């Protein structure tokens, strides 16, 4: 018998497989495919203070081994999430979830995080700091160590549950931002969010995406994600949740070997809605093949 369980902050997870924010809605869309309770947890759609429609269409582009999205945080707003989405979710998902929080100012992050923290289904707050900072010229919170520190510090003071900060790879050195978040009190970091990307439609000779650029994700970004987690593991002492292109049980193990305590899976779910179930089902056999008895024991193994 192999052991898939891991501990992330104060959460004991049956396995390290966690669908990533923005690819799993609030959990309901997958009920036709499998029972979500087989998952370690899941991270729900990025939630903001106010309702957001997001960006104009087209907001999806196909790429070699991946995709670009510029959904732009479409969500019903935190009050509506608390009033309808989470109660519906709780009927079908009995484990703790990860609440993905977005905002356009420090106050908004704090507001949304406090509200979601109060819901008993939430186990961890995941702060998505890739949003533009409206008070700072629109630059993303996550691309500046000082901004990242400030927002992490402010949210950490106002929540009682573990705080995980989700990092953008669109920076010169992701480890500097990770360290700033750790210094500000983050209990964990998750990485990577999407990489900036674009496609051109040869017929119109214009960008496919209305907003011109969007976030690139999927199997093509896996090597980028691995090095980001590997280097971050060397710089911080808090747990890391690894993601970016993970699509198989083997990928999960690679991600844990470079230092991930748990692994999020995003885009793979969109192509194959059974992706997380298949990965969980296959993990024991792949672990046996590589003589791994317990996933906990391989975390960061590539550094030793």
């Amino acid at each position, binding site marked *: 018998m192999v052991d898939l369980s891991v501990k992330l902050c104060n959460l004991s997870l049956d396995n390290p497989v966690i669908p990533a924010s*923005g*690819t*799993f*809605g609030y959990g309901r*869309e*997958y009920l*036709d*495919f499998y029972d979500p309770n087989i998952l370690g947890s899941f991270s729900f*759609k990025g939630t903001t203070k106010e309702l957001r*429609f*997001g960006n104009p*269409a*087209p*907001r*999806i*582009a*196909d*790429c*070699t*081994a*991946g*995709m670009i*999205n510029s*959904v732009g945080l*479409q969500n019903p707003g935190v009050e509506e999430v608390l009033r309808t989405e989470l109660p519906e979710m709780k009927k079908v998902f009995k484990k703790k979830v990860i609440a993905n929080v977005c905002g356009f100012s420090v106050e908004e992050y704090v507001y949304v995080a406090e509200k979601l923290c109060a819901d008993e289904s939430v186990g961890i707050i995941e702060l998505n700091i890739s949003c533009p900072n409206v008070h700072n010229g629109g630059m993303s919170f996550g691309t500046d160590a000082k901004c990242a520190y400030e927002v992490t510090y402010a949210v950490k003071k106002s929540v009682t549950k573990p705080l995980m900060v989700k990092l953008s790879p669109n920076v010169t050195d992701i480890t500097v931002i990770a360290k700033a978040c750790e210094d500000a009190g983050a209990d964990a970091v998750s990485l990577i969010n999407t990489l900036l990307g674009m496609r051109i439609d040869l017929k119109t000779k214009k960008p*496919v995406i209305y907003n011109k650029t969007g976030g690139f994700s*999927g*199997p093509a970004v896996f090597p980028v994600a691995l090095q980001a987690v590997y280097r971050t593991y060397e710089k911080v002492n808090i747990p890391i949740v690894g993601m970016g292109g993970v699509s198989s049980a083997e990928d999960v193990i690679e991600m844990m070997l470079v230092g991930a305590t748990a692994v999020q899976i995003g885009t793979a*779910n*969109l*192509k*194959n*809605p*059974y992706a997380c179930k298949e990965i969980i089902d296959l993990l024991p056999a792949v672990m046996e093949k590589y003589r791994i008895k317990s996933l906990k024991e391989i975390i960061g193994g590539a550094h030793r």
Partner: protein
Amino acid sequence: MQTLMLTVKSNERLNHDTFSLVLEGDNLTFSAPGQFVNVDIPGLYLRRPISVCQSTDTTVRLVFKVVGKGTALMAGYKQGDVVDVLSPLGNGFDVNAEGKKALLVGGGVGTPPLLGLAEELLKKGKEVKAVLGFNTASDIILEKDFRSLLGEGNVTVTTMDGSAGKKGLVTDALEECDVLYSCGPLPMMKAVAQKVKCKCYFSLESRMGCGFGACMGCSIQTANGAKRVCKDGPVFDGEVLIW
């Protein structure tokens, strides 16, 4: 919703760029005409959404136009090939809408789902007429299928250049009806919506990430708030659409 491994029964060319692909397999159930499937194409990342043209318990017919890489690869499918599709997706047309006289208005490669719709409406005892618009004679598809199903006189074909049928737009050939169902290019559907007063249903397209409601990639703004074309649509009541 599930992924199905279907076998290609036939793949025929209908004209210079449009193909009729019949897939065979078990568990093919659709709740309404106008639903779609999402086709996984080896070598491409995202699946490609294609409407169901016609279906039986064991077959589904997809009619598609080659416009890019994915549809070009689908044109090469041979009898016996295995295709992974996610199905059934979307809401489909409401065949129980009030009124006896139904008018189907199709444009180009938007006509295929209207064929399956016509079959279901006839089963419900409705009087069905169709107006099918194309750019030019060589683009025409499914004309025979519609004529043999609905009767010669109940189908009007229009072409923009007058090379076949009536010259002009579908809006030049609309007839009085109780309920109108349309699928085609957005400007065509918009023109239809502006011209008629009856109950209208429109089938929309959008670039899709997942096709089953999880990613919000396909959303549109409607009078009732944000809606996902893949899950809340692709068919929308004309009253809620913001053109």
